[in-house]
């Protein structure tokens, strides 16, 4: 069965681009446009992996991460942060909070992001 990826990303165009690429690679996708909807989707849809943006309207990505790691039902779901924040402090914070990888959007192509997803899902 195809693996299900949840994309939490507020920018519509970025969401479409990465979504299209994932579909093409044979993944199922679910999308969420902000933190709150993201948390709901993690619970309802039980994705195999979450692609998480950090700067989101309302509840930000760090908070989404902390909430899902606290909930036993979702704590094991792997998370890849995909953000524009690239300071060392942010990267360390994200990884410390339990993210499996941290990618800076501008420094990776969709193909490379898929490779990272594959590596985490292995």
């Amino acid at each position, binding site marked *: 069965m195809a693996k299900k990826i949840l994309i939490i990303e507020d920018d519509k165009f970025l969401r479409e681009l990465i979504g299209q690429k994932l579909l093409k690679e044979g993944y199922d996708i679910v999308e969420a446009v902000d933190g709150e909807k993201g948390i709901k989707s993690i619970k309802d849809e039980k994705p195999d992996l979450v692609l998480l943006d950090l700067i989101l309207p309302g509840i930000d990505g760090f908070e989404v991460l902390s909430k899902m790691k606290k909930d036993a039902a979702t704590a094991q779901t792997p998370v890849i942060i995909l953000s524009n924040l690239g300071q060392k402090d942010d990267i360390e914070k994200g990884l410390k909070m339990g993210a499996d990888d941290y990618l800076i959007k*501008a*420094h990776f192509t969709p193909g490379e992001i898929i490779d990272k997803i594959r590596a985490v899902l292995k």
Partner: protein
Amino acid sequence: MFWKRKNKNKVFFGDGAAITNYLSDGLLVFDKDSKLVLVNPQAEEFFQIRKERILRKSILELSRFPNFRPLVSLFGGGIKGFFRKELHIRENFILEVTSSPMIIEGKRFGALVILHNITREKLVERMKSEFVTLAAHQLRTPTSAVKWSLQILLEEDLGELNKEQKEIIKKAYNTNDKVIRLIKDLLNLAQIEEGKYLSKIVLSDIEGVIQSIVDVNKKRIEKKKLKFEFEKQKDKLPGVMLDVEKMKIAIENIFDNALRYTLSEGKVSISLKSNKKEIEVKIKDSGLGISQEQHGKVFSKFFRGSNIMRMDTEGTGLGLYIAKNIIEAHGGRIWFESEQDKGSTFYFTIPVKEQFGEFITGEFY
């Protein structure tokens, strides 16, 4: 009091000292027993305390006043000299403190402590870097979107492209990557100027740090058919205190220039030497070099060699500026020798561990 003995002119040096009363900087004067003997009105205002309460008190007694605690901890016990240290007195109030011992005819007569209010400068500086950080982050989303779209087209996910189409999209992709690199440099720059540049300083081995940079660039060296050599010292080099991530950025910037601006089949080498005080790193290339007239500007922000700009439009002109800032933040120096069309040699030093401690405490007396 000692200045009365030395000078009878009370207007200038006496108790009601006219000059010190009208200084815009705060002034504290300690005598040779480290007791406070003069406080001007500006200093009273800075510390929000009447001078009657603090005059004739020793530095240790002053530490009992909460307002004085930050200053006392700067002295750490006795009065000593230092230059322009920042002191956070309270929220949104920052002083720059200079302490200079007064030595008259070889005898120590106490010390002057000058307090300069830099709150506004600090605020403006912070606003400026915050603006750059914000703008750079805002630019990252659209540049990512462009990068991703072009990549998807290039990978022909949406259908085949003909040769010309592919060529143009490749150029657009590279141009966009240039903007992404510029944003990265601007963010590094904003960090430097916010002064929070060195964060995790650990005892490190510079040879290992350089080796890791060389390893990353191996393919590039082979592809360009460069003759590359890394001359290490036979003896083990002394340890240095580094913020490894930052030092890597500095060395990468210098090394990247050497590789980029040396024509294929040219020579690039890195060598190391050390003495008791410091390690010297030398990065030499047989590249395009820098013309004599431009030597003075090499480390300035946005500088690009005129000969280089004609050949390669990719650089941001920030690399060496950033490198210099990082190396100087470690207590090192950077300089170069260069001749146009013959090549450049960049040198920098890093103090060994023992020397670094002295640099950081910044004592010069």
